[in-house]
């Protein structure tokens, strides 16, 4: 299913979401071009993860649209969006803790293959999956831990596995939810260089609430507060904007 051509990799059009009387996403619109590195920032409770959840399909908006390379995916389930090239990581580590690193990445690769429905042959039959998984782990510098269970490795290494799983599928749009949270300085620079090395055919959208750490990875920035878009534009412009200072100092 090839989507119609479009200028934008991801478009969010007038998105609204409210819980009871509380509006968590208010008339949010975004236009992100292919290959762009977009940073979404905002204080705690600004609605950043809620926005991500609606983009990835984990949550249904009340109104508005989400378009992936021109295709309206607003009504699509998360797994359908994955098949259209969307991938995401979560704030909380959601890895398969009892399994090895290799198994985790292999599952990540299996999701887009028809062989995931195979009820006869074991996973080990698909040698190319294992090879690709190991290659992916190598790309994030974790090949030496491939046989270890997730529960055995450090937090920073888990974050890199998360990233590896999301990248393994060569997504067209990658959503990273606070990828640097809870990392030590060394771990942070490792993950940052990983993110910086993501190829241009993947559009990267990142949430961070700590503005300084992620700013150098971003080309464009969107500032959210109380579910609304406050400022949106090139990095330098947003930094210089008075409203940005207001949000962070006034908060």
């Amino acid at each position, binding site marked *: 299913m090839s989507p119609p051509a479009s200028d934008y990799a991801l478009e969010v059009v007038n998105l609204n979401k409210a819980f009871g009387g509380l509006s968590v996403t208010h008339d949010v619109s975004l236009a992100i071009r292919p290959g762009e590195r977009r940073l979404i920032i905002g204080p705690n409770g600004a609605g950043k993860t809620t926005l991500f959840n609606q983009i990835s399909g984990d949550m249904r908006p009340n109104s508005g649209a989400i378009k992936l390379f021109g295709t309206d995916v607003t009504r699509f389930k998360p797994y359908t969006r*994955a098949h259209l090239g969307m991938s995401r990581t979560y704030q909380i580590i959601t*890895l398969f803790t009892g399994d090895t690193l290799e198994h985790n990445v292999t599952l990540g690769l299996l*999701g887009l293959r028809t062989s995931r429905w195979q009820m006869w042959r*074991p996973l080990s039959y698909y040698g190319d999956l294992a090879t690709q998984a190991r290659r992916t782990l190598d790309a994030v510098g974790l090949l030496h831990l491939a046989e270890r269970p997730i529960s055995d490795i450090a937090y920073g290494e888990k974050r890199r596995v998360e990233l590896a799983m999301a990248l393994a599928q060569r997504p067209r749009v990658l959503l990273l939810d606070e990828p640097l949270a809870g990392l030590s300085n060394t771990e942070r620079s490792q993950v940052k260089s990983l993110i910086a090395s993501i190829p241009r055919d993947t559009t990267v959208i990142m949430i961070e609430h700590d503005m300084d750490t992620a700013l150098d990875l971003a080309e464009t920035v969107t500032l959210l507060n109380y579910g609304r878009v406050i400022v949106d534009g090139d990095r330098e412009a947003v930094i210089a904007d008075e409203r940005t200072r207001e949000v962070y100092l006034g908060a």
Partner: protein
Amino acid sequence: MKWIAAAVLTVVLALLPFLAGDFYVNLASQILIAALFALSLNLLVGYGGMTSLGHASYLGVAAYVCALLTSRYEFGHGPAAVISLAGTTAMAAFFGLLALRATGLGFLMITLALSQVLWGLAYRMSGVTNGDNGIAGLTRPRPFGVSLDNAASFYWFSLIVTSFAFLLMTIFVSSSFGSSLRGVRDQPRRMAALGFNPWMIRWITFIYAGFWGGVSGLLYVYYNKYIHPTSLSITSSAEALLGVIAGGSGTLGGPAVGAALVLLLKNYASAYIERWNMLLGLVFLFIVLVMPTGIVPGLGRLATAVRRGSR
């Protein structure tokens, strides 16, 4: 390596009729049937992460349909078995649609409610099911003309069916679909984000588990030559669940061991205690409070502790 162990075990089990009398052989047949039932439930509980308290639905429906077709409508055993299994599997598909509208406790409640309704129907629709009298006077099939009426031949028949079922279930859980199933059990949201369809994976597993539940129902009705609404009761589902938990839901073979233990307990205890249900309840409390991951892992831990202590 595991295959060799399994093959050896099967051969050893096959020798039982030469080593023991009819009473024990019959007991072993009952164990095989209970084990198959528990194994089918464990596909849902252990591998799928879906705890059902209504699994007796599939055992009971398959048993009743077979009983009715062979006794009242004079079907041959072959066609009766096919129709029973087809009907049970279709029912599993339908029940799955309903039950999977929820997860966790909601799922449990729906499976329980559905099974209780079937149980009530079995009692009330006495025109069809003979109500509290059950349907008696049934016969066993004659596969390839071989009579299953004596203990040994029925035992071997059950052994063949159960081993075959175990083999197929092993293939199922080791397949890539099986890996997806376990992934959905552990992190359904993550799996959806990776491109898997959690609902479909669960539904297919539900149907497959229902199918094998139906097979155990056929063995059950062949063995007993009688069927009664109690086989659809919550006690029936609960005994299987206890077997799964007692044996440990984490392994493929654990539930078989657990089911064997529950059956043996039931057999021996009822000789001394009239109130089996009360004992069953107490065993439930004991297992859940003291050995929640099951006897097999619990004993394993005990063994490790003893080894460490003796150093």
